[in-house]
């Protein structure tokens, strides 16, 4: 195991990694930007080091600053968290060149899975059904139109690089396709520096289900079941739960086993997530792999009792998994609510400011991963995630009941948050029946969704 780890991230995930380090008896240094000087991870850390100004490009996204901070503080590994440099194979390579360990897949593995289209092809070759899509990247408009015709409308235009919904458009006609290609290219170019696009068949009523895997350096892997992330707004996950209400136990197990088998065969290493779309008839299609710890990892942790961040560190340190699939048991039902500083009544406009009063809910089956405290000033420079509320119950209805109580108890004064959208979800028939699809919010619009919940 490592002696000392540099935490190259901020907010709730920096805190989560700090806790994992302490549990393992590993020293930790929190690297922070000037914008996060007064943050909780910095305050709780035994050691913290300022790596740059608030602008993430010159701090959390600066490979030289992060690596230099690790070297001068005597760290032997860097945990990148999620976002920022977490899936940057160039960064992972430079980290290794400085005799430091990147806590995640090695650079060679990140490189193998860097292209989404390439990954689909690779894992498709190992037995995972992939969603019908274009053959490689779109060469030009004519090629795009031909491929869309072959796949069948509606189709989704997607950039090869990046994620988070940028540069993505769903189109239903050739005319629409022609009109969005240029916009998608320029959005992709601006966001990821790469304007390659590809097409994917669009499933109107689909669910987003992902499988968590963990594979050690020796090719020994386990799966930790799936998570249902169908509740989204414009391709951004809002609420995640497990097990998915969309599939039978046998179907869920089959999906997880096939995902693990393909990931092992393709040479994946460390913890990772394979994302799938599931259609109305239960057919699943592989879409992409996330080579990092994910925001929603606690759902799996409370269901299985496995500390995924600690597992990630052990694998990166070269330790064998030390457990087999038979050791993994799934108990009850878990739901995670992402608490964001966003105003659901105004197009989810981000809000920043001082948390005048903060109270985290508690009680049986309630976990809160958050960097908030009373008096904390939420900086305007970063994403709007304030924390995650995770509830567990022996079954879905009891988890939902605990979720209602916990959301009611949560106090975040001074900021506008999206708590109301979660409360509306827990009052929504479609959600309560477990029949939500990824268009649940976008179909009616969030404002209408909130209003309907208020009437109910």
């Amino acid at each position, binding site marked *: 195991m490592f002696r000392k780890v540099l935490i190259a991230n901020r907010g709730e995930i920096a805190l989560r990694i700090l806790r994992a380090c302490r549990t393992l008896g590993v020293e930790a240094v929190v690297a922070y930007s*000037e914008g996060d*000087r007064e943050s909780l991870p910095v305050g709780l850390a035994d050691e913290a*080091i*300022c*790596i*740059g100004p608030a602008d993430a490009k010159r701090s959390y996204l600066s490979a*030289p*600053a992060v690596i230099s*901070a690790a070297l*001068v503080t005597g760290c032997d590994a860097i945990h990148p968290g999620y976002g920022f440099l977490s899936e940057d194979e160039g960064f992972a390579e430079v980290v290794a060149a400085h005799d430091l360990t990147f806590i995640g897949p090695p650079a060679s593995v990140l490189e193998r899975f860097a292209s989404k289209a390439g990954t689909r092809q690779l894992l498709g070759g190992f037995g995972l059904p992939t969603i019908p899509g274009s053959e490689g990247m779109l060469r030009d408009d004519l090629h795009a139109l031909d491929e869309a015709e072959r796949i069948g409308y509606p189709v989704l235009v997607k950039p090869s690089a990046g994620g988070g919904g940028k540069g993505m458009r769903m189109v239903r006609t050739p005319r629409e396709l022609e009109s969005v290609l240029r916009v998608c290219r320029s959005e992709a170019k601006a966001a990821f520096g790469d304007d390659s696009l590809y097409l994917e068949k669009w499933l109107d009523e689909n669910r987003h289900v992902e499988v968590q895997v963990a594979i050690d350096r020796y090719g020994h892997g386990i799966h930790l079941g799936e998570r249902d992330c169908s509740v989204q707004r414009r391709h951004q996950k809002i609420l995640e739960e497990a097990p998915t209400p969309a599939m039978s136990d046998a179907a869920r197990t089959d999906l997880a086993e096939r995902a693990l088998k393909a990931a092992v065969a393709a040479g994946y290493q460390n913890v990772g997530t394979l994302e799938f779309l599931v259609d109305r008839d239960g057919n699943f299609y592989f879409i992409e792999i996330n080579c990092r710890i994910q925001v929603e990892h606690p759902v799996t942790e409370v269901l299985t009792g496995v500390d995924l961040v600690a597992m990630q560190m052990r694998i990166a340190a070269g330790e064998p998994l030390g457990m087999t699939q038979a050791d993994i048991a799934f108990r009850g039902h878990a739901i995670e609510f992402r608490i964001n500083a966003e105003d659901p009544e105004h197009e989810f406009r981000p809000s920043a400011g001082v948390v005048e009063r903060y109270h985290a809910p508690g009680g049986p089956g309630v976990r809160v991963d958050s960097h908030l405290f009373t008096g904390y000033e939420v900086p305007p420079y970063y994403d709007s995630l304030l924390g995650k509320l995770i509830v567990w119950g022996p079954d879905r209805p009891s988890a939902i009941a605990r979720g209602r109580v916990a959301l009611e108890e949560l106090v975040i004064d001074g900021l506008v948050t999206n708590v109301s959208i979660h409360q509306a979800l827990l009052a929504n028939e479609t959600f309560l029946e477990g029949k939500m699809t990824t268009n649940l919010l976008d179909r009616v619009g969030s404002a209408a969704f909130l209003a309907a919940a208020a009437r109910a």
Partner: protein
Amino acid sequence: MPGSLPADSQRPPDTAADARTADERAADHAAIDRLTEDLLPALIAKLGATGLGELEVREGGWRVRLRRPADGQPPIRSRRPAERSTGDRAERGTDRSTERAARTLHRPLEAKTARTQSRAVATSPAVGIYRPRADLAVGARVRAGDRVGAVDILGVAQEVVAPVDGILGSSLVESGDAVEYGQEILVIEFTPNPASTNGTGG
């Protein structure tokens, strides 16, 4: 008293206005011009950049004092004042020339500075290993913008820059020390001399 200015400018108390010669008046006007064109804007920029509550400069029989409004920013923070946002604006006067000058001169300083009335501090531009400049010793005269040392970040040197004209004072870190971004590195004894403040000397 030019109440519209954000500064109190006071004439030397021993000079009676009606007893002056034309030459003296011309000299006075030149001094006032220099005050409004060069010194005041520079001081306002500095006040804005440091987050200090008050700044006073004396020269000859002149004294200029700038103060933040009572409801303005609190005085310098105890911990790492270099980190203060450069968004703290200088006081805004109603005088046109002052406003214009404040606009043009309130450029973000490359090296953010923490300053008292007579000392400023050069801070680290990066996280890495500090190397002083071998040819500079305590007592050396430096100008704002001069390289006074470097911080090695993965073998690439980033300059530590003097924030003001002055005399090199004590070093707050040793050669070879690890430093973080924004860390205070070198004291510069600040010369309260407008001739050097306006940077026209060379």
